[in-house]
């Protein structure tokens, strides 16, 4: 029997302002009438969802203890936020025009900001069961807001923790940079070791005209956790959205990204690096829509899989009729480190305008034999040669991260995963 019932939805929405209630009840209906997505739907192709929402229940409130966030330490003087199973812990803060507050309070106290971002960049409950669940049973999260012309003086470091066996949580991260404002945010997604927890993170992002938002997400869930995330960003005229994702953890970790380059001259830079080990499934569905003229986007993802891990990247660049003078590129390169591992890499273009420059590249293959031979001719044993080559493979993506400070810890995490695989004879 499902724990996601009417009462759970009402409890989650106890603090909702009236304008939110209707949306929640609509989402609840969508959830109740919905079913688990299957591979028949293009957007769910290549992965099997081997669980049901009935395996989970809404997470109980309470602080999850995971120790300090190591990422906070590599950032210079960050404003820190703690989300525990999606719920904002601590006080709201305003620092030099940068405001960081509980999303629940924001919905009540700053309804105009919250409503405008959620109506434009919120996740639609109609899309699938997980998005419906988030809209029906979620509500907790953080709003990071920089008003007009505000250049946020420090990076916001969000430690988003989840945990509890059988618990489902719905952390919502809402970022707004109004006209000519600048925001920089790092999110660390983590979960309690050993807990089979389901996390449905939602990112809603509004980049106003002439504004800039840089967001890095380090996905470091425990291997027992599942995560089905989504991100929607709407980018205004001459505005820039920079996004980097590091995919490390989770037995299943998915991110569905929708970026709408709405304003004339808007641009997006999307970078990714992921490493799947053992039976992990890392799943990326990235959609880039060019709506305004003179827009520019670049997607660049590098990934590796070992043992029986699988990765999926499906990228879509869609250029609307209005998106003349667009430049759009996507690149996805994958290393297959073991025979049992696999990577799907599916770039797509849909171009409705006639004056555009587009390009895409996609590769899936093993480590390069010529590089190994060359490095071995210098006296390096094959394991060292491969480790060096593997490190070099990711370096290009790490150099492009929106937050260069994250390159070093990411390098160390990826290297450790690879060295463990070597030590255990899987690669």
């Amino acid at each position, binding site marked *: 029997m499902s724990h996601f019932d009417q009462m759970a939805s009402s409890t989650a929405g106890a603090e909702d302002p009236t304008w939110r209630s209707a949306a929640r009840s609509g989402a609840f209906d969508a959830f109740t009438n919905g079913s688990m997505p299957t591979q028949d739907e293009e957007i769910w192709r290549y992965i099997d969802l081997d669980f049901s929402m009935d395996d989970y229940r809404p997470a109980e409130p309470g602080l999850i203890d995971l120790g300090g966030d190591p990422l906070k330490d590599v950032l210079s003087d960050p404003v820190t936020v703690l989300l525990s199973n999606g719920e904002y812990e601590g006080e709201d803060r305003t620092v030099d025009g940068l405001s960081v507050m509980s999303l629940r309070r924001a919905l009540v106290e700053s309804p105009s900001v919250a409503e405008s971002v959620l109506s434009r960049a919120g996740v639609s409950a109609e899309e699938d069961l997980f998005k419906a669940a988030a809209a029906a049973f979620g509500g907790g999260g953080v709003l990071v807001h920089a008003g007009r012309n505000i250049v946020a003086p420090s990076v916001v470091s969000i430690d988003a923790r989840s945990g509890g066996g059988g618990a489902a949580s719905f952390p919502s991260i809402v970022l707004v940079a109004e006209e000519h404002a600048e925001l920089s945010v790092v999110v660390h997604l983590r979960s309690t070791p050993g807990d089979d927890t389901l996390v449905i993170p939602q990112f809603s992002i509004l980049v106003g005209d002439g504004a800039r938002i840089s967001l890095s997400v380090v996905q470091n869930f425990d291997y027992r956790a599942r995560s089905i995330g989504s991100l929607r960003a709407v980018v205004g005229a001459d505005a820039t959205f920079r996004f980097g994702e590091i995919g490390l953890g989770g037995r299943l970790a998915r991110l569905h990204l929708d970026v709408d380059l709405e304003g004339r001259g808007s641009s997006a830079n999307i970078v990714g690096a992921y490493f799947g080990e053992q039976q992990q499934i890392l799943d990326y569905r990235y959609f880039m829509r060019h709506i305004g003229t003179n827009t520019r986007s670049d997607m660049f993802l590098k990934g590796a899989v070992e043992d029986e891990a699988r990765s999926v990247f499906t990228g879509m660049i869609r250029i609307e009729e209005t998106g003349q003078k667009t430049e759009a590129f996507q690149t996805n390169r994958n290393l297959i480190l073991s025979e049992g591992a696999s990577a799907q890499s599916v770039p797509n273009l849909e171009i409705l305008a006639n004056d555009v420059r587009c390009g895409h590249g996609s590769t899936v293959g093993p480590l390069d034999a010529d590089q190994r031979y060359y490095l071995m001719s210098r*006296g390096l044993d094959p394991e060292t040669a491969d480790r060096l080559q593997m490190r070099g493979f990711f370096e*290009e993506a790490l150099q492009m991260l929106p937050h260069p400070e994250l390159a070093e810890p990411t390098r160390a995490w990826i290297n450790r995963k690879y060295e463990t695989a070597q030590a255990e004879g899987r690669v």
Partner: protein
Amino acid sequence: MPNALEISNLTASIGDLQILKGIDLAVPFGEVHALMGPNGSGKSTLTNALMGHDAYDTSGSALVGGVEVMGLPVHERARVGLFEAFQYPTEVAGVSLRDLITEMIEVAPDPAAASERTTQASGLLEMERFMDRAVNVGLSGGEKKRSEMFQLAVAAPKAAILDEIDSGLDIDAVREVAELVEALRDPTFGVLVITHYSRILRYMNVDRIHVMVDGRIIESGGPEIAERLESEGYASVR
């Protein structure tokens, strides 16, 4: 005293195709020899077979400083003291030359000495500006060869094979590479320069020239061989 490199009755084939048909060749310590031959004579196969490339089935013997290397994996041949400067040095994206040199120093028999050699050679060859760039990525032909010579100096091998070290270089770069080889010449190792053309030999003092045709050494002698090949071509030795 063993030779730097001593090859005896070496054969190499790919499938049913025999490319090396029994090579005998010795390079004493302190000497620089050249191996010349027309395209397709087996020069590059000899290099690869000696270094241990897995494309070839081989038989015969190759001693490096008196130690048999045939049958060893590539990295162990390198550690015995065999070095190959590549005709087309492989690009290793995302790995800086400094990272590679650090690993080379780590596996050297005497890491402190290798570190010292690195400092010296880096100065001599003006390599500092290349240290933080990815190995061979975006380098000109001449810069790649310079980087190979630098790695040779760091490795301090007993025997070095310079495979078509002059290929793809303009005349100034050829002279520069030849001068580097001369500068590195040392009683502690022997060099085998593999070349198609004799022009690089104008700028270096080779002790001996071996001519290879169709998988065999058909003539060995002094520098006068190069002059004859230059005027008469390989047709004169066939």
